[in-house]
């Protein structure tokens, strides 16, 4: 309590929120869900890799395939994370502000020597820290399990890619955390906030792609097998519309990071492929390729957080 007083209680709130999240059932249940599905997909991936190695001899980037391989029935690990990860973020934030309202504890907290901005910052940072800690733990556990399953240690390149995967995942989930904090600030009822969050999640995870397809087809009509330029333009528009969804951004970023042979995202002209050799990208080029996606996620997170900050700061708080 010596130094923490100077930033107006930010550290206190952050630590308290972190402790609440980590010990709370909510987090444990959701991370458990992610962990169970993740481990299941990892196991399936390991089986697939083993049979593939038996058939094809050596495989490059075996360790990365643990996260991207699937047997066609169970989606790969990264799909589970991209689908279920938002739930973790939503669960941690949906009642961040509205819950305090409902419990009528907000004025009590603010009666302490704690600044109002420290409260919202601390709630976001605490959630972020909890997400980062739990994801790191899951990441390490999955990595260790993968090591046991396939017995091949990751190379330095693979390790850097996996670290980038962890960082992008933390950013992705923190976007959903920021979004749910925004909803909890906008809506006074925690249930409303949660529903809004779930609606957003379902929309982006399932319907955004379909809508992007429809919208692109409506904007640039192109028959299959018709004018190639029109098809190309339609594909471009569809891609850009679907990239409005954080789920698409995350999927693109992560699959590129964990699949070194992906060299381009989006449609590629034949003339760009001519003379190209089969090969993998160096890690720097992969990072460069997904950097726009990462910037998009960071920007989205910052925008949601800033919006909730502004809303919270301007809100009238009655006891």
């Amino acid at each position: 309590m010596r130094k923490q007083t100077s930033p107006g209680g930010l550290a206190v709130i952050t630590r308290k929120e972190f402790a609440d999240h980590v010990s709370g059932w909510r987090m444990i249940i959701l991370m458990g869900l992610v962990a169970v599905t993740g481990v299941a997909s990892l196991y399936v991936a390991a089986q697939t890799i083993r049979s593939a190695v038996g058939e094809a001899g050596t495989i490059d980037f075996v360790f990365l395939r643990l996260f991207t391989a699937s047997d066609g029935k169970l989606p790969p690990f990264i799909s589970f994370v991209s689908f279920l990860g938002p739930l973790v973020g939503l669960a941690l934030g949906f009642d961040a502000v509205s819950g305090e309202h409902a419990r009528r504890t907000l004025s009590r907290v603010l009666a302490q020597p704690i600044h109002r901005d420290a409260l919202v910052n601390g709630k976001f940072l605490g959630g972020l820290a909890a997400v980062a800690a739990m994801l790191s733990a899951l990441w390490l556990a999955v990595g260790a399990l993968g090591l046991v399953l396939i017995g091949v240690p990751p190379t330095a390149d693979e390790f850097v890619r996996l670290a980038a995967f962890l960082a992008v995942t933390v950013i992705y989930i923190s976007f959903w955390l920021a979004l749910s904090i925004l909803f909890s600030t906008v809506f006074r009822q925690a249930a409303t906030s949660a529903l809004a969050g779930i609606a957003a999640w379902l929309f982006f995870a399932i319907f955004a792609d379909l809508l992007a397809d429809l919208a692109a087809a409506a904007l640039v009509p192109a028959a299959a097998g018709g004018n190639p330029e029109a098809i190309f333009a339609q594909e471009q528009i569809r891609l850009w519309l679907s990239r409005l969804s954080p789920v698409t951004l995350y999927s693109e970023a992560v699959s590129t990071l964990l699949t070194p042979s992906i060299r381009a995202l989006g449609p590629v002209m034949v003339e760009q492929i001519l003379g190209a050799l089969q090969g993998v990208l160096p890690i720097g080029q992969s990072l460069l390729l997904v950097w726009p996606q990462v910037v998009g996620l960071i920007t989205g997170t910052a925008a949601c957080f800033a919006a909730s900050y502004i809303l919270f700061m301007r809100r009238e708080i009655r006891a």
Partner: protein
Amino acid sequence: MMRGNQEFKITTAVFPLTILILTILALIMVMLPPASIQAAGIDLSTEFPGIFVRPGETVNLYLQVTNPGASGIIALDTDQVPEGWEQPVLRGGGFRINQVYVKSGENARITLDVKIPGNASAGAYTVTVRASGNAGAAELPLTLRVSEPNQAGAALTSQYPALRGPADATYSFQVTLDNDGNAKETFSLAAQAPQGWEVKFKPRYEDKHVVTIPVDPNSTQSLDVEVRVPRGAAAGSFKIPVRAASGSATAEIELQIELIGTYALNVTTPSGLMSAQATAGRESSVTISVANTGSAPLTDVSLTASAPPNWTVTFAPDKVDALAPGETKQVQAVLKPSSKAIAGDYVVSVWAQGRETSDDAEFRVAVRTSTLWGFIGVGLVLLVIAGVSRVFKVYGRR
């Protein structure tokens, strides 16, 4: 008259007696061993009783022993051997012999080995062979005329002493080394070849490299002379004197190789690394070396490249006018990938086309995308942070 009659009577009386005696005698003659007919005797003969020989030589003479008398053992011996000569050896049926058993009326073949000493001087020598048995004895003088000893001499001959072909090859000459002398000689072999050429001597049908080779007197030894011509040897005619020398004789032969010029071009980089890095839409320079690896000069070597669409590859200079054998010239290739190139590896083939020959090399160009957008992204993130901190400032604690 009476007497005449008497005599007649007597003679007529004696006649049957004489016949009887003669008959008995004839019977005795038939039944007695033929030893009684000693006049026939033993015959020792050879077809060529006088021969020319050389010092150091061993001659085998075939003798025939005929026994017209009763079967019996005939002792054989050599006599009257010239001074300093070894005792000749009689052989028969694979054995050294000193006796032979010859049936009556038959003959036996035996061999006489005579070793003529190496130092025998010219002249006629006589070796006498004796045979003696129950039926008598026989003598056979053999005349061996030693001819004037040859001086030590040697000769090297080859059926094909001149060969023609390209550099960077091995030429094999078949050479025969002839020792005309009367003594066994050990020849040391040497060849004078241009610098960097390798000459090896091998006995025919053997995979050994020899420096010296022994040759028996009056015999020949076949040799393979292998000449390895290095890569880059200039075209032209080259003489390779080969010499075989022993203590007393030398022989020489001049082998000749006519090298025809080869045209060979090699495109590579000074470091040998056939990969380059380039950034999409930006020029990058690669040094290419064009080497004449043949043995004839090349002219008008122009450089071209085949690259993916929308790439540009230029060479400075784009033409090498002349390239002497062994010479290497460097050319700067400036390659600019398409600005829309996707990151990854591409193949760029570089062709060097001379008037005489051509070569190509494939380069692996690792294309990186411009980091410009990466920096724009960083700028965006900084802007976002600035925006949030501005929000903090504007709406922060009041």
